[in-house]
């Protein structure tokens, strides 16, 4: 589903942020990326969404190479690539339902959505996605009134409304308490299975990676240190990812 081949990114100051990076995430799979601060985890996601332009390499979403796209073609390709962040990034004054439905904006005509809003069917679908994340009762509530865990669930529902094939998550539980963090990880795991989503999730919480990931990728200094099924990832290997940070 998502294949990254020979991906490299060198910043204008000469620093190599990613070097010859290779990874594959299949549909229905939850892959967790671990690594120290500045190791290149978030940079990897920003390259995949093409917020950053890689210096070299290919990013394949199905049969489409995102690195070869610009403008309208890139926008269309992004419809299949959803992203959630550490903070939910919701429009605080809009309702929860309106926030979820905005995930589908790109699939509808500009005139229709700007002047007439989204079709009723899309709003019904948005209610369904809210039900999937367990927040159907909060549809009409303002997004600004939600707790951190609830807001993150709404952000996930918004990404589902996008109907993506790949879901990228950049430290989605970093600002949540342990219980809410477990809830979100369980939800991502369930969605990967039920919706056949390819989920690539950057985490700092090693225990959550051991509990929920199908596969774990370790990054150090912009290079892959290991890419293994969860059961084969040793504590020592994970520990080595963070050693240079402590030194």
């Amino acid at each position, binding site marked *: 589903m998502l294949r990254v081949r020979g991906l490299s990114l060198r910043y204008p100051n000469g620093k190599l942020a990613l070097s010859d990076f290779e990874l594959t995430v299949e549909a229905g799979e939850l892959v967790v990326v671990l690594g120290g601060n500045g190791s290149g985890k978030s940079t990897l996601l920003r390259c995949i969404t093409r917020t950053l332009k890689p210096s070299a390499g290919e990013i394949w979403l199905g049969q489409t190479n995102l690195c070869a796209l610009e403008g309208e073609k890139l926008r269309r*390709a*992004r419809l299949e690539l959803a*992203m959630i962040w550490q903070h939910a990034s919701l429009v*605080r*004054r*809009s309702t929860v339902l309106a926030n979820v439905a905005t*995930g589908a904006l790109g699939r509808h005509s500009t005139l229709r*959505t700007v002047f007439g809003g989204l079709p009723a069917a899309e709003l019904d679908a948005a209610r369904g996605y809210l039900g999937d994340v367990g927040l159907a009762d909060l549809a009409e509530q303002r997004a600004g009134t939600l707790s951190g865990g609830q807001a993150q669930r709404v952000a996930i529902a918004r990404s589902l409304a996008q109907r993506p094939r790949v879901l990228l998550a950049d430290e989605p539980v970093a600002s949540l308490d342990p219980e809410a963090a477990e809830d979100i990880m369980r939800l991502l795991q369930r969605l990967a299975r039920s919706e056949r989503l390819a989920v690539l999730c950057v985490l700092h919480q090693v225990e959550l990676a051991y509990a929920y990931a199908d596969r774990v990728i370790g990054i150090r200094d912009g290079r892959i240190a290991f890419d293994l099924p969860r059961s084969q990832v040793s504590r020592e290997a994970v520990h080595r990812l963070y050693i240079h940070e402590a030194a």
Partner: protein
Amino acid sequence: MSLDIAGRPAPRLSGADAWRRALTTAVHCVLALLGIAIVVQALIVVEARPQDLITGIHGMADIIWRAMPPDFSKLPAAAWPTLQTLDIALFGTMVGIVIAVPLALLAAANMTPSRYAYYAARAIIGFTRAVPDLVWALLFVTAVGLGPFPGGLALGVHSVGMLGRLFAETIEQMDMAPIHALELTGARRIQVFSHGIIPTLLPSLLGISLYRLDENIRSSLVLGFVGAGGIGFQLLTAMNLFQYQEVSLLLIIIFVIVLGAERLSAALRERLA
């Protein structure tokens, strides 16, 4: 050896510390003298003569005496200029909003499509704000003649500057995370604007616009003095004709309008917050 209040020996200042403390005290004294000098020069420049106020108070008392009681029989005649005053402010505010919103988008560093557009928009906003509304009114009276229309135009142009600056600052302070999130869903720029930027900014922009309307109502009262219509023009005419009882009635109307607009604007802004 000296002791401090807790009974411990007080620390002795070294030579350098003593010098530093003396220097700080001297700087404070100079700053205080400088502050006093600024106030004194202001009194000299404005030719402040409090004694004149005391000797001339009987003149003021005479006018107030002649203005009593207010001539309420002129109330129906004051209704139309009152409506004109309110509508001048409303028209000016609406013109200001319509022009200021696109200008502010160009003048906000986080939204502008190009550096040239940014500087051009900032220049227009700065210029329309720098020229007082009274001067704009004089210019428009010359262009389109006496009456409420030049007043409305003057407030509109001046509001472009005032609103443009506040709108642009509000846009620049906006949380961009939801906007970036929408962009990455594959939404088009106009969709991001309609579903992300407008809902985020609308309450703030409405609040600023209501405040501007409140300010414009005050300004429209004064614009009448240069022939731009409304109750100000009525007030000037009554004063020139020594109709002080009518003047007092008009001042009561102005007081009610200003206070009412202020309260209404504050109440609406509170609801939007």
